[in-house]
């Protein structure tokens, strides 16, 4: 890697465009959102450009704290499910034949290419009373009468996990494909059954990538917006839903901005915390 600085001011020219794009499309809008969050809302989409903390004061209400709680709960559980399912799946995948690997990676990428709306409605059909798995359960005699499983928290989790899974697999695949097969075999010759070798060696060995993937999926899921509305009850709505509700339906831009900044700050703090814990763990 070349690390020397350009010798003439002209040498900085190539970064001009990205710098401009960064300022125009990220820093300026973000700055205006920060400013907006301190304005006074007049209602009906109008606001007054005076400094006030009332938007942030409103955040500390039981309602918004519970919405925030729901957001974190959904993101946490989804990240957990995605890793718990995705890690063993990816481990099996990297040990499978080449053709099998390619097939599943294509399946995963196909899931990513699906529209979130389609996934949402597919799940709501699947979990419905008239055409879903409820009918199957009734036919199998598992339940007395077919029932609907959506909308519910479980439905939200299922749908969002479905979207998060490919990310988990694609995050873990390059890391797990680098394991030497010797490691697992060594633990077997030393007396560990394949299952024990997996839990005793393979999982703890990948502590860091597991935590990193968890945080990435957590952050990614925190912004989920469409599926909670399709598959969940209003009590299952995430902060993103409430933000869009404030911005688009209530036309309260200052409060929507404050909510956004609050969500972002909490997320960043959380990520920092986990990174810190992880770094400490890696050192010890």
């Amino acid at each position, binding site marked *: 890697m070349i690390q020397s600085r350009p010798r003439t001011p002209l040498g900085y020219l190539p970064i001009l465009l990205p710098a401009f794009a960064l300022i125009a499309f990220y820093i300026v809008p973000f700055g205006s959102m920060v400013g907006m969050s301190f304005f006074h809302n007049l209602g009906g989409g109008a606001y007054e450009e005076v400094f006030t903390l009332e938007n942030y004061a409103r955040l500390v209400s039981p309602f918004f704290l519970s919405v925030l709680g729901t957001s974190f709960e959904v993101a946490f559980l989804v990240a957990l499910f995605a890793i718990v399912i995705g890690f063993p799946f990816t481990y099996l995948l990297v040990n499978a034949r080449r053709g099998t690997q390619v097939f599943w990676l294509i399946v995963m990428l196909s899931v990513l290419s699906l529209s979130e709306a389609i996934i949402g409605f597919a799940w709501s059909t699947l979990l419905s009373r008239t055409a879903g798995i409820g009918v199957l359960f009734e036919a199998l005699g598992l339940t007395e009468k077919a029932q609907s499983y959506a909308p519910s928290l479980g439905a939200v989790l299922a749908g969002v996990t479905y979207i998060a899974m490919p990310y988990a697999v694609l995050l873990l695949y390059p890391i797990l494909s680098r394991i*030497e097969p*010797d*490691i697992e*075999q*060594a*633990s*077997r*010759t*030393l*007396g*560990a*059954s*394949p299952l*024990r*070798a997996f839990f*005793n*060696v393979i999982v*703890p*060995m990948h*502590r860091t990538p597991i935590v990193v993937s968890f945080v990435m999926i957590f952050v990614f899921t925190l912004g989920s917006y469409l599926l909670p509305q399709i598959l969940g009850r209003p009590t299952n709505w995430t902060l993103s839903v409430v933000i869009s509700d404030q911005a688009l339906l209530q036309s309260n831009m200052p409060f929507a901005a404050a909510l956004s900044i609050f969500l972002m700050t909490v997320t960043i703090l959380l990520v920092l915390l986990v990174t810190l814990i992880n770094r400490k763990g890696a050192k010890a």
Partner: protein
Amino acid sequence: MSGLIVENVDKFYGSVQALSDISLIVDNGQFVCLLGPSGCGKTSLLRIVAGLEDPSAGRIVLDGADITSKPAHKRDFGMVFQSLALFPHLSVGDNIAYPLAIRGVPKDKRRAEVERLLDLVHLPGKADRAITQLSGGQRQRVAIARALIMQPKLFLLDEPMSALDAKLRETMQVEVKRLQRDLGVTSLLVTHDQREAMTTADLVVVMSEGKIQQVAPPIEIYRNPANAFVADFIGITNLIPGRIEGGRFEGPGGALTLPGAKPGNATLSIRPEDIALAPQAGADTLSGTVTFVRHLGATTEISVDTGNADEKDLTVSLPGRTHCPLEVGDTAHLSVDPASVVVLG
């Protein structure tokens, strides 16, 4: 019947046959080396013995019990892998204690055992180190200690020293041999390095193309190779094709008296150090033109073109302090002690 018996083992990978009809007996306490070029099937055989792969046919018997279908984790063997396969997330001590932890041995007992093993491999007091803090040779010792902590019935080594530099490798070979002798553990080592095999083994199994070529003690393998492959693979040798009639060998460059040799077409294997310079051509000399002289210090190597059909020059190795009057282009006369000649069919 005590010891390891490999009985008529075949191994196919798809349609490729990696091992064909391998039979081998390893007595308890013996150190056996599987020696051969890469792709000869030696590693497949070791992995089958370890239980990491299933043979396509044949049986593995240990101390009279058939263990062919016993999974690797129930065999109680210790294995050192080529990559060492140390667990990067565990400390040195936890790596070594892993087999004990799996079997539920209490912590204080594990600790004591680890200390004992670390002393054995000359790494005292390193239990709390991270694997990444160790040098290549130290990691090697940790892998050996981990494989030996359960006092395994069989100690398996898959080219564990191939990643070390030449000097360290020699030291480790001697150390592994000493350790094995002191512990009396039955051992099976896979290597392509004949020096390693000669250093460590009581018995060398030379393999090529999925078949056993010869099983014999190291010096026997060197002095009495069973066939041209073994003669050529172990050390350096001169293979001279020719004909034997009436106790005399006729080949390119001259003739040699070989009392009692069977008549017919034959190939002689003569080690470079078993050839001496003769002052002039005689009834028992081979002659040819010197094509190259190498003064290597400990020895002087002379290449002599005797008109061998496959255009391979004879190599002659003289002790370094012997005066060598020959230069490239001179005619050399070579004499050979008939006792050192191996006649291959």
